[in-house]
């Protein structure tokens, strides 16, 4: 039965850019393992007679006609930027990642 190790939780924290304290890792490990257990239960219940589903919502996507609408102005678009320059968002230095 899959469960979360401390290392995995730390790794998830890194991926989400969240610094976790030891106490937080302990607490999250407990909480996430409860969730994992629930998912495992669902998997046990779903036998061969239950068709797999990819999405619980019984709807299909609406397709929008390819027609342009008025966009935001550059001022509106960058209004929420902490810092902007020449109509562009200023982002901190990127450290050799992508």
């Amino acid at each position, binding site marked *: 039965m899959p469960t979360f190790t401390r290392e995995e939780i730390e790794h998830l924290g890194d*991926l989400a*850019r969240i610094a976790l304290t030891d106490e937080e890792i302990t607490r999250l490990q407990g909480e996430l393992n409860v969730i994992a257990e629930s998912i495992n239960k669902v998997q046990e219940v779903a036998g061969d007679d239950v068709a797999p589903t*990819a*999405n619980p*919502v019984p*709807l*299909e*996507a*609406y*397709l*929008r*006609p*390819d*027609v*342009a*609408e008025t*966009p*935001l*102005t*550059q001022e509106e*678009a*960058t209004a*929420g930027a902490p810092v902007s*320059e*020449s*109509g*562009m*968002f*200023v*982002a*901190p*230095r*990127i450290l*050799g*990642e*992508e």
Partner: protein
Amino acid sequence: MAEKLMKYADAVKQFDPVFGLETHVELSTNTKLFCPAHIEFGGEPNSQLTPVSLGLPGSLPVINETAVDYAIKLGLALHCEIAEWSQFARKNYFYPDMPRDYQISQYDKPTNGNGYLDVELEDGTVFRVQIERAHIEDDAGKNTHVGGADGRIEGADHSLVDYNRAGVPLIEIVTKPIEGAGERAPEIAGAYMRAIRDIVRALNISHARMEQGNMRADVNVSLRPMGSKEFGTRSETKNVNSFRGIEKTMQYEIRRQAAILADGGEILQETRHWDEATQTTAGGRVKSDADDYRYFPDPDLVMLHITKDRIDRISKEMPEMPRERRNRLQQEWQFSDLEMRDVINADALDTIEATVSAGASASGAKKWWLGELSREANAKGVSLEELDITPEDVAEVEKLIADGKLNDKLAKQTVAGVLAGEGHPADVVKAHGYQVVSDDGALVAAVDEAFAANPDVVEKLKSGNMKPMGAIIGAVMRATKGQADAKAVTKIVMEKLH
């Protein structure tokens, strides 16, 4: 630091390359994949955005119908199975060009799967490339690194982000691992990309200009010992955006990895970058596992249902595919394989076809588009289509030649006039008074003058030495301002000699 490389010929003798290509094709829809922001290349920064392209809270994506239709077209062209139900998934990663911090892509339920593409190589060999999937996703914005040397990430102190491209629809075509290519692997990779470009253009679903980033490829390469079935560790070179770049990347990676493996080293699974300036690939970051992207179905989007009716309607709209079209035209035009290859390499298929439709002979059309006009286009650094002369103009010049109204020299001058913006061939001919003089009286007089001015030449001609004939024809041409019909002149000269 220069990396150790093995000679290419030795590398492919010792190792068997396995490769795969992930090709991103930017669709030429009017609006973005999930919002009605208009798409235009080179607009003011951050002027083509809606709250959805910026990932603002409370905004919801709605799928662009045309993007779905384009994806189906490409799927059909690549002989894919089109899924009745497909799903969009979030691919999570942090980078400032992604305003939502996730890309909306497709993961385990892509729209197109299990296809193939037959790729024709220069020598006519056909190589079948298996397609794993061709899924729909949205593009990221663009970072400009500021403060460092020549806009590189290294040393930059901050980045400026333009989100205009964020949300532009892409199709990512992923091949299955391509095996058995041997030393021809780079050639096959290049030919595959060109074939994709031709298909995408024929379908009219993308501008397909690599230099503008409409098409780019991630190149995966690994080596294994000859005879081995197991794949080696691969490197992934990201965002290669020229056909030559793809071939060079393949060659470089094969040589680099062979040198490491021959020394008993191990290949690092990493992403690399092709550097056009140094013609090398450079190491980037160690590759994330798919797990690290934490893909999950996008809860903002319900499943995409593609009905049989929709597929049937699109099937009926499918144009002839490039390879079939090339073969048909070659037969119609009766060109040899070599001639056809020249036409393809000059990217002149469309213009020749249009010129033939406008009434010219295939050989006549080829002569112009591969000769004068290719030279002109190369000199100006533009495509044949961008020249100031249309296929109809070329067909008109050909007709004037066929009717005996222009000789070769005047025809070239007429074409030069059209290229210079003087109007259509008829306008140029009229403005300059170009006219072939085949009127015997005027030509006989000009030949008489030429004889009188060149008695020594006439002596030689009379003695049977025909070499200096050009001097007489040249003199007649000068006298008639280039408007004489050379054949008629030769005939008169021969009559006078005997």
